[in-house]
């Protein structure tokens, strides 16, 4: 049996945060066969996280073998993850993505992002929402982080 990445204490804390989950969220995981040092751990981490709540599900793709799906979700890095809203058998892509394994501080970002997508509400200030309503050109935000 593979050793778990998340110990019982962490799972308990995550469970507490996941009490706030509302609507279902599907995690689309994209791995790659060659040259992906972190894919295995990232997939295991994603699996352990979605196992904590029945409002979360995981579907696994390969960046090369499932290139059309990757293109559809604008995923070009492995390990990559998309947090999509699930509504019945429909998926809604909000453009919420992760590239790389979310460990350290980013682990808690991922947990809170799952709750965010589940709420279907950005929680942004009114002024920010109004600004975003007026944005008519595509905006790609890439947030670089380190695992410390």
């Amino acid at each position, binding site marked *: 049996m593979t050793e778990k990445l998340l110990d019982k204490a962490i799972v308990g804390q995550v469970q507490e945060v996941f009490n706030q989950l509302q609507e279902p969220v599907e995690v689309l995981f994209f791995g790659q066969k060659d040259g992906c*040092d*972190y894919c295995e751990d990232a997939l295991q981490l994603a699996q352990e996280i979605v196992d904590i709540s029945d409002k979360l599900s995981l579907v696994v793709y390969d960046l090369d073998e499932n290139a059309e799906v990757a293109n559809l979700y*604008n995923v070009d*890095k492995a390990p990559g993850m998309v*947090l999509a809203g699930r509504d019945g058998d429909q998926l809604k892509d*909000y*453009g*919420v*993505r*992760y*590239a*790389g*394994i*979310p460990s350290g501080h*980013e682990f808690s*970002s991922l947990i*809170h*992002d799952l709750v*965010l*997508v589940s709420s*279907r*509400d*950005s*929680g*942004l*200030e009114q*002024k*920010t*929402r109004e*600004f*975003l*309503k007026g*944005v*008519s*050109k*595509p*905006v*790609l*935000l*890439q*947030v*670089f*982080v*380190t*695992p410390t």
Partner: protein
Amino acid sequence: MLAHQMALESPMVQAEMVEAMEFPDLSNRHHVSGVPQTTINDGAGAVVGAVPEAHLVAEIQRALQSA
């Protein structure tokens, strides 16, 4: 995360958290020194550090105007 909140709010916005050490070429190209660093439209704008909403909004505005 603020960028992800914006992605959720607007169909025009996509936000990707990038683990800098795993993707060094991309990080070097965007001169990532401090984290978190938010890069807008492949370098049209950038913000270093965790900033208030209004600050990121202003930088997005600036990046879109200069495009």
